[in-house]
């Protein structure tokens, strides 16, 4: 998102926040529009329209799966249907009005739009009318995982697009870099959360408008936080009038986020460690400076976006969960992961770490081995969530092993330190912990940011002058 995008969205948020009861539908319309508006260019031009459409379609299908007949009534959901289809139609009509600079370069012919809507309506009818076997939620959950793996694996995506491209006579020059499904990483997590929670009867009843708003809520659509549906919908249902303090907090958060992203992060990007600098720099001291610059850059960039999302949501009277709480000032890795991209780690804790731990405990596996397996596998999956590459896998394993070692060290020390430390000793211990944790995390970023593990190893050798 550019600063201009955010400025426009902030104005939209200001207006939506003033709408009282009509806030929900206005928010829905803007969110659907933003899904189209922010979709980046694609190798195949038509995908600029169809990928956002797929986002909306997937969301509505999931709602049809989790909704009960009582909540699916036309009367209740017709306004939402009209808003969603209306926005999609307006975007499609772009071709007749020439608003290319506003949202996109290419939209399908009207008959194609009509055909797509009709086909979707037919699928929706089948989902509603046909009996629903119990495995359908698990199947949908698995399908989203497979879709996720497919999209995050460069080999699969590149092969598919190269194949399609060859069928179309090599229309696109470089399909490798020209495909992205904006926001899918986050949407997938929200969809899986609702499917799973519906299965275990933890999900509240959600109307179409509430559900779509939750999944594609425009402030958090592209970069989180990953809220929980039951928390989000409570905020949505009570259009709270903002008090003076709320306004101050919302605007402060928004401007702090803009400053972090567009001043600090973008400036640090110029000196953050990258593939080129690894080759060009030989001094270990400079390598450390550039590595720290990367660590700060990724923090300011990501937490800046979170601040912007929280600020925008707050302007509309909706509180989003926190995603970062000074992670680089934490004295150990566990606390770091409790304060870095918190909503992601909470999601994995709920839907991956805890179930696996419970499963292993029932099988009499030794505790240290359970900890090793669960920590490494959880962090590995978190790594692969960013993309199925060796670099992300190694980054995940690095953190998994780090968490395991820290866990064992804590156990080891706990049994040996009998009396509380002197305050100065405690301070020194905390400072050392912060220093070690920050450096451990920074070294881990090498696997995350550099294009190959070989480059990461080269960087490690230069950092330690080996």
């Amino acid at each position: 998102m550019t600063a201009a995008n955010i400025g426009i969205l902030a104005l939209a948020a200001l207006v939506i926040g003033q709408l009282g009861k009509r806030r929900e539908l206005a928010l829905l319309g803007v969110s659907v529009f933003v899904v189209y508006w922010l979709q980046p260019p694609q190798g195949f031009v038509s995908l600029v329209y169809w990928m956002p459409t797929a986002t909306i379609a997937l969301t509505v299908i999931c709602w049809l799966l989790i909704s009960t007949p009582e909540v699916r009534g036309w009367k209740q959901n017709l306004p939402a249907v009209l808003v969603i289809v209306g926005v999609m139609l307006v975007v499609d009509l772009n071709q007749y009005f020439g608003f290319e600079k506003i949202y996109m370069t290419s939209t399908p012919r009207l008959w194609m739009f009509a055909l797509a809507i009709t086909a979707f309506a037919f699928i929706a009818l089948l989902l509603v009318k046909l009996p629903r076997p119990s495995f359908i939620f698990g199947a949908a959950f698995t399908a989203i995982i497979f879709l996720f793996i497919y999209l995050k694996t460069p080999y699969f995506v590149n092969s598919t697009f190269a194949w399609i491209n060859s069928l179309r006579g090599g229309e696109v020059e470089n399909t490798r870099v020209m495909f992205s499904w904006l926001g899918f990483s986050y949407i997938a997590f929200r969809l899986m959360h609702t499917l799973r929670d519906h299965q275990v009867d933890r999900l509240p009843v959600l109307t179409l408008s509430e559900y779509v708003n939750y999944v594609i809520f425009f402030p958090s659509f592209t970069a989180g936080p990953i809220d929980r549906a039951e928390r989000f919908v409570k905020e949505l249902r009570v259009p709270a009038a903002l008090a003076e303090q709320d306004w101050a907090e919302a605007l402060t958060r928004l401007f702090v986020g803009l400053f972090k992203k567009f001043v600090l992060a973008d400036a640090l990007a110029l000196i953050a460690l990258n593939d080129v600098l690894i080759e060009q720099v030989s001094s270990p001291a400079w390598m450390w400076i550039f590595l720290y610059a990367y660590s700060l850059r990724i923090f300011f960039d990501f937490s800046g976006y979170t601040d912007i999302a929280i600020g925008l949501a707050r302007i509309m009277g909706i509180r989003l969960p926190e995603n970062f709480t000074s992670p680089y000032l934490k004295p150990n890795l566990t606390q770091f992961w409790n304060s870095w991209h918190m909503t992601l780690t909470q999601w994995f804790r709920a839907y991956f770490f805890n179930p696996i731990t419970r499963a292993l405990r029932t099988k009499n596996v030794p505790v240290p081995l359970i900890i090793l397996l669960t920590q490494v596998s959880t962090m590995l999956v978190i790594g692969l969530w960013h993309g199925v590459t060796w670099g992300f896998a190694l980054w995940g394993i690095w953190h998994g092993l780090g968490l395991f070692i820290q866990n064992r060290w804590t156990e080891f020390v706990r049994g040996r330190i009998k009396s509380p430390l002197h305050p100065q000793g405690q301070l020194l211990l905390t400072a050392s912990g912060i220093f070690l944790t920050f450096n451990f995390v920074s070294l881990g970023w090498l696997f995350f940011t550099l294009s190959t593990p070989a480059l990461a190893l080269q960087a490690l050798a230069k950092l330690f002058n080996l």
Partner: protein
Amino acid sequence: MNPWRVLLKAFALYALVNLAFAYFQPSMGNFSVYNWLVQGRERMPYEREIEYYPVSHTIPVYEDMDAMFSSHIVSQPKQADEYRVMLVGDSSTWAFGVTPQENLTGQLNALKLKACDGRRIVFYNVAFPLPYVAKDVLIMQKAREYEPDMFLWLVTLDAFRNRTIYTDYFLSPYAEEVLSLVDDYQLKNLDTKDVRVSSFWEQTLIGQRSRLKKIILLQLHGLPWAATGLDYYYRDWDPLSQDQSDSLDSDFGNPDEVNFDETLFEVLRAGKGAVGEDPLLLVNEPIFVASGSNSDIRYNDFYPRWIYDDYRAYLETQARVDGIPYLDLWDVVPAAEFTDSPFHRSPAGEKLLANLITPSILNLTCSK
């Protein structure tokens, strides 16, 4: 709290800061991390392709000569025993594809020359890679703030061409200086119809945002520059062809159209004026001389023989008329020592040129 009121206050504050900036016009380019936090650059910040800025650790800031000069080692205090020579010119003097140690400036410094009065001669490369003499004069004017003792001005025919794109690119940000030059030296041919002094609104923070952004980015590029010592992305290049086309056309037009009196040779006298009392040595820089087919018609891709031969004669006359010491070194560098263009030389070519210029420089040091 009323959000609209907050926005209104923020807008009012922003407007106030903008107006104050336009009124006081602080010279932001003088705030620099170079020469104190990191070492100064040995050439003016420049990279021709935007995607290579992060690789060459630089960004051109031609809109702000203060920023250009403050990032350069020339802005370090002058030593008592130092005799400063500024090299002005285009991409061949800036030296594409050649390191600062290997280029003409570096080769001259390696000779460790002494001026007539015994001072160490230190050469500074203040060239900016555009073949455009009007830009050179502006740089010479600015360079006088950095205590020069002599100027070495390397030119080629292409630099005397009037080009509107260069007017926008390099002259417009210095409208007052350019218009003053036109008045002072009665420059009739320099195209200044689009050159205008910026309005008050263009001087606000909003109006200056692009320039300010570049100045900030230049400072940030200082760290990787200091870490790597790289200020250029050294690209692969194809050797020049010895074979030439049979076209007689030049960028100045065909033989019937060319009249050097209507080109920028008049700028030479402005250059002479810009350096004041300091000695100025004008050098017609070496070009690639092809020896393959049609080399009897053209020297290279840029110059057919007819115009280049005329140019040499005209430049020599003009230099004499303007009282500028002149050195014509057009063919002293062998064809094998040119790299990716008929003007860009290899390190060996640079060394050869340095040795050939040295006697004239030493002579001139005795003139002041």
